[in-house]
């Protein structure tokens, strides 16, 4: 993370006003809290302002939300600069790509996704592409590690990415036909790639009758046979401590 500042003056719109629909929504949010506690709605309303503005928060919006909530401007600025989900610089018109760069995604090739971003959008994060349609940033874990690597675009995640299919995702956004969110390979949600890997024997599927299916395997390596008794325990023999007196060669 680096110091986050408001966008320079020339990028700032003159003013910000909520649309009638958003304003009604904001008022409803405020009404959820007791009188005098309207500031509790700050994050929700600021987020709405970001959506209305196309993914970022201009300075005028900070003031507008602060005025709406009767808060000092500095308090709203604190919120906007604290949470990295609030973008302070304009983002791509068609897509702002948040690439997960945390360990599981890294191990599964997030580096390549970042390379694609750098080459196709801008070599630095938070910068618009030449046409102004795209921007990207690296974010911390977005909680889809099973489908690593992944990106978040607007509200949807695109998972199981490779350089190639991520390129297609970008193409989709560029042409205005975003692909279906979720895994970009043949996979159902976070189920195993290429179909189920467990519980796929005839017995597990319940094809051998009731008795056969009543004995699930307890460990992967040493599954119980259908004939084993349920009380059989796999208790591995205790290993001796690493350097104790029973070791051979020691007196």
């Amino acid at each position: 993370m680096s110091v986050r500042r408001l966008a320079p003056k020339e990028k700032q719109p003159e003013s910000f006003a909520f649309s009638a629909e958003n304003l009604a929504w904001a008022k409803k949010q405020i009404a959820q809290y007791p009188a005098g506690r309207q500031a509790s709605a700050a994050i929700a309303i600021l987020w709405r302002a970001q959506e209305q503005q196309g993914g970022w928060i201009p300075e005028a919006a900070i003031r507008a939300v602060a005025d709406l909530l009767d808060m000092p401007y500095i308090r709203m600025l604190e919120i906007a600069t604290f949470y990295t989900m609030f973008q302070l610089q304009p983002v791509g018109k068609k897509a702002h790509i948040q690439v997960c760069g945390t360990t599981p995604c890294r191990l599964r090739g997030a580096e390549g996704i970042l390379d694609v971003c750098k080459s196709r959008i801008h070599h630095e994060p938070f910068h618009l592409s030449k046409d102004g349609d795209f921007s990207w940033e690296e974010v911390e874990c977005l909680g889809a590690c099973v489908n690593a690597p992944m990106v978040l675009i607007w509200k949807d995640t695109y998972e199981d990415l490779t350089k190639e299919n991520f390129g297609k995702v970008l193409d989709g956004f560029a042409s205005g036909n975003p692909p279906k969110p979720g895994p970009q390979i043949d996979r159902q949600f976070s189920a195993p790639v290429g179909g189920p890997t467990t519980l796929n024997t005839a017995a597990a599927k319940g094809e051998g009758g009731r008795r056969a299916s009543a004995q699930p395997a307890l460990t992967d390596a040493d599954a119980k046979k259908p004939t084993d008794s349920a009380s059989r325990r796999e208790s591995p023999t205790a290993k001796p401590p690493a350097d104790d007196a029973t070791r051979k060669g020691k007196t």
Partner: protein
Amino acid sequence: MTKLIVDGKEIDVPAEYTLLQACEAAGAEIPRFCYHERLSIAGNCRMCLVEIKGGPKPVASCAWGVRDCRPGPNGEPPQISTRSPMVKKAREGVMEFLLINHPLDCPICDQGGECDLQDQAMGYGVDTSRFAENKRAVEDKYLGALVKTVMTRCIQCTRCVRFSAEVCGAPEMGAIGRGEDMEITTYLESALTSELQGNLVDICPVGALTSKPYAFAARPWELGKTQSIDVMDAVGSAIRVDTRGREVMRILPRVNEAVNEEWISDKTRHIVDGLRTQRLDRPYIREDGVLREASWPEAFAAIAAKVPQAESKRIGAIAGDLAAVEEMFALKELLSKLGSSNVAVQGGDAFDPAAGRASYIFNSTIAGIEQADALLIVGSNPRKEAAILNARIRKRWRTGQLKIGVIGESADLTYDHDYLGAGPESLADLAAGKNRFLGVLKGASNPIVLVGAGATSRRDGRAILAAAAKLAADVGALKEGWNGFAVLHDAASRVGALDLGFAPGKLGMNVAQMTEPGALDVLFSLGADEIEVPAGTFVVYIGTHGDAGAHRADVILPGAAYTEKTGIYVNTEGRVQMADRAGFPPGEAREDWAIIRALSDVLGKTLGYDSLAALRQAMFKVVPHLMRIDQIEAGDSRAVKNLAGKGGNIDKSPFKAAIDDYYLTNPIARASAVMAECSRLASGRMLTAAE
């Protein structure tokens, strides 16, 4: 009360104490950065760690309640250790983290010598750093004309954020960003607007916020320190005047719980450069319409030539806002020897000392505001007339137990209030029960009716004062043990003058009458700069600065400013306080009482005292309570009841603010470039020159 064992010593403290308070009660010293007695608890610096026996790790004592401590296994009191090896190690660890990003620029830092971090690093710092990486650097912020920032030094204790939000009531400072990138700033680096912003410098434990006018001016250990009293307003804040040689370098607050707690207003703190500039350092005489430098004998001769010709009833004296009691006493004696009772203090026309002390002082006392549960402000903007007192009102309001109504100019007072109207009519309506705020006042157990200078400086001030006193009596503000009739003066000299009887009485003329064309032949002006003297009057100006009064003067006798003389001042609550001399007046200027004594000799009406002590002896004989320094001679509430019966005609025009520009209310402030800059900022005109 809860029993605790701190460092082996058993103490008994209230259960609502924090551990830090308990440890201090037990005599243990706890280092801290973010904790401040008068601010909310943040608990983010972690310097105040202590060990609780049985606990797995040290706890931040500032944020840990005594009632949260568990007793020992056999029910013995919780044991706290503030000096154990674990505590020492923990604090050393905290200190090391704090110093990771703190620059080692103490030699060029203005906080050097009075820096909490510096002091505590001596106790808990390690001699070397294990941090090899680059240090964090933070851009400096612009916060206005008074507070200079070096934000790399900031340790993010957030005291300034809490101070501006809680005490100032102007939530302008904030912490943007997060973690290592957290920065303290105002919204888009706009200038601070509070009248108490100078205190941010005191409250900052490091050198991140320092005084801009005082930048690189002096080191604390080379300054002479004089405890004194402020005269910029009628609050009489306790101050410490720091001098190098004879030059006043800066003014800092002293703790006085009864008056200013530990804050002072910006005007109090930053008029320092006004004490150096525009000074009258030699006598002047007006010849052919032009002032020329003169010697003392020449100046006295010019006066001696004029005064005996004047009819005694056509001689008068007006005291200004900054006059001490001694010189007013001497001047009054001189005038009475000349056969005149035309003595008055600026802005004091509405008050009659003969009516009793309670009719012109802040009877409830400033500390008493914290017992009040209803407050009616009439014709006053306490934020400008007495910023420190306003902070006290806000402090009480924040507890939720004070309801406030305002009659007068609508203004942002930093607290919520019912706005009841603009003029005397609203006061009459309220008294007649046409406003539900009357119910609030009546229902309150300790109501205060505060009358400000906006009401009393009017020509009908006497009648308004009487109407306010009547209201106070009607709502039950005058009772056993509580007098809620509170006059808020805006000048330091006024209560002292009224105590002395420096007022016209029945025979004399008041300020308004004296300044009418053709009323006087000779006027002695004791630093009265806010009056308009008509042509034809021979004006003898005894003052310190080349301000309006000096421009109008025919003879100027250079006097001493409040830092250059010892003088007694009486604040708005009637508290007698002594200001002490921190330096000597410039050039040929002399202490005011000595000037008046010498003048009396020249005029052949010699006053009977040759030293300040002798003057005081004489004065104490007449007004004994001036002897009792730091005490309040309580007023008799019957005086307020008598005042209530007086009545009078009230003009219908709305109250006007007594102070247009907070930063430019007296000659010293008007001579100060810092105050001029503050005034420019406050009036919305930003400086074009970059910081």
